[in-house]
């Protein structure tokens, strides 16, 4: 394996959890709900998936537990912001703090346990193609799932009636309600989907990326996922691009240091964040406002009577 291939492989691993979490948040936000609790749901996903995977010695059950944990956290959030029309920003932040704390409790007995690596899917023949072979045809299942998920979310939002409903509710929940669209029900499922994705991203971190669990291991990736949704102007394809730019910037700066390019590491560490700010700037210069933001994003829905 050449250095080039190795770098590309690391970039894929670094980008995948960001992509999965950001896709979930994108669907939630397109329905008009801002859930700032991604970090907390991801932390719970990581802890519960690792706990289940170790207890039952099964990666599949681990992943299921991670997604379930994320979805349950999201359900709690849904209860607050839909049931009680609570402030979404506050509820989301509370969810993050709760998730980080609760994950410490859940994971405490599993500190120090380790899991064996999840074997990559090896497609015979194809994975022997030089350079692109290993990159495209010998990844773990999560990577393929994340790409498939991107396509499905894009198709769902643009091509299906249900996706159209979700988008119109996100654009203007009052009108949507007047048209008789089920605002609460759609938003509930969108929030749950976001939670399950965050949980899946957490499961990937704990089971594939690091293969051990320790408190606070999400280390801010939930926040990056939130930034990615804005970076992508709420479009799934751009979330994919953004996640990979972000992953690449993170990994490449480490390689630049190892290769002694003489660029300050602090600056290099900041590159992904600077890229996000730059992208936002360019988007708003071209369009006058942050394009793509759903009209009802973050506004509590209280129907007129």
């Amino acid at each position: 394996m050449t250095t080039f291939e190795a770098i590309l492989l690391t970039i894929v691993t670094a980008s995948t959890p960001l992509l999965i979490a950001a896709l979930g948040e994108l669907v939630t936000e397109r329905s008009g709900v801002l859930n700032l609790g991604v970090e907390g749901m991801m932390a719970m996903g990581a802890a519960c998936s690792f706990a289940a995977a170790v207890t039952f010695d099964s990666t599949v059950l681990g992943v299921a537990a991670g997604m379930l944990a994320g979805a349950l956290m999201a359900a709690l959030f849904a209860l607050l912001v839909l049931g009680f029309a609570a402030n979404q920003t506050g509820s989301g932040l509370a969810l993050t703090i709760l998730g980080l704390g609760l994950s410490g409790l859940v994971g405490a007995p599993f500190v120090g346990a380790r899991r064996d690596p999840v074997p990559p899917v090896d497609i015979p023949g194809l994975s022997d193609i030089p350079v692109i072979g290993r990159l495209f045809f010998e990844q773990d299942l999560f990577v393929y799932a994340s790409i498939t998920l991107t396509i499905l979310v894009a198709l769902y939002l643009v091509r299906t009636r249900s996706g159209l409903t979700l988008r119109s509710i996100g654009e203007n929940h009052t009108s949507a309600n007047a048209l008789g669209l089920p605002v609460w029900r759609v938003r509930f499922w969108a929030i749950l989907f976001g939670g399950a994705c965050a949980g899946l991203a957490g499961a990937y971190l704990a089971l594939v990326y690091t293969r051990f669990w320790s408190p606070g291991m999400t280390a801010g990736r939930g926040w990056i996922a939130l930034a990615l949704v804005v970076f992508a102007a709420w479009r799934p394809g751009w979330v994919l691009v953004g996640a990979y730019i972000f992953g690449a910037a993170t990994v490449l700066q480490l390689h630049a240091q190892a290769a002694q390019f003489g660029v300050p590491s602090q600056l290099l560490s900041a590159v992904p964040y600077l890229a996000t700010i730059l992208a936002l700037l360019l988007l708003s210069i071209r369009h006058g406002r942050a394009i793509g933001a759903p009209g009802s994003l973050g506004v509590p829905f209280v129907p007129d009577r």
Partner: protein
Amino acid sequence: MFSGKVFGALAGAAVLALSAGGAVAQPKDKIKVGFIYVGPVGDHGWSYQHDQGRQAIEKAFPGKVTTTFVESVPEADSERAIEQLARTGHDLIFTTSFGFMEPTLKVAKKYPNIKFEHATGFKRAPNLATYAAKFHEGRYIIGQIAGKMTKTDTIGYVGAFPIPEVIAGINAFYLGAQSVNPDVKIKIVFANTWYDPAKEGDAAKALLDQGVDVLAQHTDSPAPIQAAEARGKFGFGQASDMERFAPKAQLTAIVDNWSDYYVARTKAVLDGTWKSEDTWGGLDSKMVVMTPYKNMPDDVKKLAEETEAAIRSGKLNPFKCPIIGQDGKEIECKGNGALSDEQVLGMNFYVKGIEDKIPQ
């Protein structure tokens, strides 16, 4: 710096004890000992090792000492947590991160009858002692092992931040490697975090991808050594024994062993002999402990054991003079035949042979 300050602090303590009259320490039957940790007990590293020390106290004085701890205390908000312990009847309080220095000092002044101990800091008071460990002694040994074990003559180092503590570790590691392998090169990556398992792992992978085959780390999670294990390369455990994460890759681990110190200090409070001092312990005081040397040929193991013994007995100092800087000029030798403690604690240069620059 240290000997002078210790003396000053002792003199200060004596004066205060005299002037306060009644504040002279008395032997006690039952005490409460409190701990403040910067990270979670489950970090596998820094805070985990401090908690091992706390448990050692419980074991050493059954029925006489009760302990409590507060984990994951943000440095900016630590004053409240420390004061909480002070108010709830603790006789001895350990605050275990550099960033707790000012808050500890503040609370210590408010509660002159409670003993405080602050790890890795330099501010003392009559009722506030400081302690730290000479991890660079261990890093010199692992440097020698790395220098012997590398086949590519390229060794790697995952650092947290370019601060003196980390720089001194890198220099000690490289000097050790150079002493047994003059051709050895080092590649250094700063993760710019103490704790982000995924990123630490990526930093390690970047080094391994660029030809590094023996890896040292100065970040807190087992991710780097685990990356070495996955690639069939070698690494060293940091802060605690990480063998279970990398049974084939871990050559040895530098373990922070606070247990003996914590037990001794607790006993001092029980006996009424506690004094404010500065302790900088190394291999000799067992504050720094090497785990068994494994996964290496016998001659390398023998070399490591000899070096460990030499450092412990004081025959060998990793920073013995002459130390040559990157510019080829000799660093002024302010200690006795070696760099002074002050120079080590404030180290801001790489030694000759390291081709990288310290990020500014």
